């Protein structure tokens, strides 16, 4: 999730590899202080995974955890609070984006994006007064985009353009209802309108809407593959009966996985077999050739060249959040454990064999690989 596009993954990997080779040991479990300090810019300037912990709705107890790839390390929870004098991160942490030396953390029900130094997690700024922000992507060091639901009372969703020099909103672009993930590819910004059945395409040079591509109901997640095709996972539209006592399966639509070919805007859609389960958690591996998603209580893997939906269950479990390590293909699944306490992160080898599990924060909903 929270995918880095390829340029950025590559760039990051390149910068980080140089610094991460240097250290191999760790000291006490509260502090991952690399041995040679002058070669790193902070405790998180190393290979590992950030875990996004959503927290309880209505309470600013969302958090970020970090697990180093180096052997012998324990997960460190609450790294934002630890680096910022105990300050809570925010309410419903929805997304985190690493760009250059900064991390942008979207706090949905706090209406803000916290900006931190990606190596130390010390706060450097904040974008405030957003309206239910969902996901963020940085175009470059100057400009970023955030999707905003605005409200759940029927308002049109929007994308706000953020000046990353001063963290202010410079422009808002109206898109569809309840916009969710966005990604930048080929000079265009793609926005999944989960309250509708389409994807809005915005020109990143002019910030104007160029077109709207119709997919299936409730498109939510986006992934860019090695051929620069855009994959869209639509959850399907859930309809309840009149008194909201049950789901009306006659009206509920099934989820679908769609492939958009950017040049032609051609859409190839694969519809899921049942409307009783909503697919989710679309993610892609480092090579950009394998898609992963959850459906019907399992984790599926699908080759990007497949011509039908995969029925390969790689893990017989569905997760609250899903991530795939771009370097080694390890699969990370987050379990919310009912939000009453800490969530659990399960780690699997690429073939689905379980490696380990550990406790993170409340409601782990996504992974960002460093």
């Amino acid at each position, binding site marked *: 999730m929270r995918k880095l596009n390829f340029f950025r993954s590559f760039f990051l990997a390149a910068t980080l590899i140089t610094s991460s080779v240097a250290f191999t040991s760790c000291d006490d479990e509260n502090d991952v202080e690399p041995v040679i300090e002058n070669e790193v810019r902070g405790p998180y300037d190393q290979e590992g995974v950030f875990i996004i912990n959503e927290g309880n*709705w209505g309470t600013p*107890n969302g958090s970020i955890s970090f697990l180093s790839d180096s052997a012998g390390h324990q997960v460190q929870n609450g790294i934002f609070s630890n680096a910022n004098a105990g300050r809570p991160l925010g309410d419903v942490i929805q997304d985190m984006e690493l760009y250059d030396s900064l991390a942008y953390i979207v706090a949905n029900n706090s209406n803000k994006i916290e900006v931190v130094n990606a190596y130390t997690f010390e706060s450097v700024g904040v974008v405030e007064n957003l309206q239910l922000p969902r996901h963020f992507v940085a175009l470059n060091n100057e400009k970023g985009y955030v999707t905003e639901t605005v409200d759940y009372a029927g308002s049109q969703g929007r994308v706000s353009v953020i000046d990353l020099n001063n963290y202010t909103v410079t422009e808002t672009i109206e898109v569809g209802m309840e916009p969710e993930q966005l990604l930048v590819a080929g000079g265009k910004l793609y926005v999944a309108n989960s309250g509708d059945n389409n994807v809005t395409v915005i020109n990143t040079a002019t910030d104007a809407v160029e077109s709207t591509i119709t997919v299936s109901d409730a498109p*939510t997640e986006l992934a860019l593959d090695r051929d620069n095709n855009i994959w869209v996972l639509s959850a399907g539209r859930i309809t309840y009966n009149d008194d*909201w*006592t049950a789901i009306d399966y006659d009206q509920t639509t099934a989820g679908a996985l769609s492939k958009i070919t950017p040049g032609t805007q051609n859409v190839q859609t694969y519809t899921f077999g049942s409307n009783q389960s909503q697919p989710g958690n679309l993610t892609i591996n480092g090579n950009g050739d394998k898609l992963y998603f959850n459906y019907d209580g399992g984790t599926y893997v699908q080759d990007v060249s497949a011509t039908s939906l995969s029925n390969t269950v790689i893990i017989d479990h569905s997760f609250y959040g899903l991530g795939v390590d771009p370097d080694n293909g390890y699969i990370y699944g987050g379990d919310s454990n009912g939000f009453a306490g800490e969530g659990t992160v399960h780690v699997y080898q690429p073939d689905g064999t379980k490696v380990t599990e550990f*406790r993170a924060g409340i409601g782990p909903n996504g992974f960002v690989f460093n």
Partner: protein
Amino acid sequence: MLPGKKLHGLRFMRLLPLPFYLIACFGIKATGYVVLFSFRKFFALAACSFGLAVPAVAQQDSTAHQLRTVEVFGKPAEVYAAGSRVSTVDSSYLSTYASSSLADALQARTPIYFKTYGVSGLSSVAFRGTSATQTAVLWNGLNIAPATLGQTDFSTLPVSGIGEVAVQYGSAAATYGSGAIGGAVLLSSPEYKGKGFGADLQQEAGSFGRYFSSGSLHYSGAKLEVGASAYLRLAENDFTYRDLSRFRTPEVKQEHAAQQLRGFTQDLTYHLSSKTNVALHTWYTYADRELQPAMGSAYNNAKQLDENLRLMTTFGHSSRWGQTDIKAAYFKDYLHYTDNSTNSVADVQTYQLQAEQTYTQGQNWSLRGGINLQHFVAENDGYAGQQDENRASVFALFRYNPVEPLALSLNFRQAFVENYDPLPTPALGFNWKFYNNNRHQLSLKGNVSGSYRVPTLNDRFWIGAGNPNLKPEQGWSYEGGLRHLLVLGNTLLLETEATAYHMFVDDWIQWAPDYTGNWRPTNLQKVRSQGIELSSTATATVGDVKLSGTAGYTYTSSEQVAVYEGTGDKGKQLMYVPLHKATFSTEASYRGWSVLGNLNYTGLRYTSNSETTSLDDFLLLQLALNKKLQIRQNTLILTLRSDNVTNTEYQTMAYRAMPPRGYTFSLRFIIP
């Protein structure tokens, strides 16, 4: 997170009125290491209290009377509660803090912990480590919790208009029925003594846009006692706090915590003869509130309107068969919650009838038998339709003093609830005054009691969440204690009590999200709560100076000891149950002047099931200065109060800002 899941969450929010949602957050919690309580703080408090008592040497005419009341047959609530602890909240405190809510009063003066959703929000109680639904609230002897929520929001209950507030510690289901697991809060209508007319007017203004007005009138004649009171409380609550969640933690103004509370009471007692009386009590409360969001959470226009009407009529008659009491009551509890995407109404009507017969043989024994019938009609946007329910119970309470220093009580109650089969709840207690000379008295006390609680209507019928197959809670509680009384003539009365208790609750009902993210109630297999309660009260008189002080300390350990399915929460302290709480209060009066001081120490509370996050301990100080002026027979009382004198930054519910130091000035005019 997936938006699909978000919508689930959202649907949940749409359907659940806030208080419901809150219960869910009342979870069960987390790792067994003992928090380092500041023992120095506690001992400092204790030392102060004893220090206060020592220099006392003089006259006090009320001591003997007080002693007798405490000693012989106890307060009405204590008659059938031998071996358990019952304490009343000091009346001078209640009159000085008449504008506050019952939550504020009990938080300041008792070991009970209240988790308050900010200054204007819902206040739920944790008594002896149990949850809000496990604390019974009775008004003139009848349980007032609506069957939907099964709990009372103490922030909507005013101190104004209430006569006495007593607290019974520990399980008392045999006496009070379903829900009295952790304890019971007993409220009673005021008694009007003396003859003729009387009136009481109060006007108060304080910091953060707070205003309070109240007035009461009463008349006592040979046959008739009648009283009525009304109050209005307006609070802007626009205090300044440090927003801990925001970049650079700026000082900001609280913007969404305004409240308007009003209500009235009416009490009428008519003595048909010296042996027969009828009474009518009315209690209406109205609360219109903005619900203060957590720091760092967006305000979504959450508002709540509560309207509670309680009517009760009683009939009492004494004959050679003893005292007959019949109470009939009608309660209507209306709750309307709204926010940007929710509009939810819950409307519950409760009909209750209780008849009891009490036979007392001198000071030797007393037997009470009775029946209680309840009928609930609940309409709730969260239910598929109207839900009706009938409940009944029969009870027998027996008090026996075989010899003067020994008091025994044996109680029994059997409840009947449609679709449930509650076990009988017995209670056995004793109080043995084993040492008595003219200065010291020592008593040993103990009791064993069973308790139960039927799942609330929300637990069972909330669409998509309620579980009709929930098991009722069953519990056993054991406690023992020692009480010491020191009397130095009429100058000093020192009462010290130490209690240890141990309680198990099977099938404890907890709201928690299931694997789909929907909040649902489930049974926890076994929860154990155990602890120690210490209290010491001293009253001393030196010339014109009267001093009194009370110190109390509680240690509460509450954790799951057996779980149905493997979870990580076993052996961890329940969230929002402080291990340590201590209170110290003192009052000194000299001629027309009096000073009240109140210290409240609340230890660390975990805020998650995993014992990973917590709220820091805090110490709050309240001070009040009263000046009483006599104007002919009338009394004018001027009061200057300061709450949170030391400007402590604290929270009782995570991230809900609480007010800093504030001042209140009040004028009260009493016509006898």
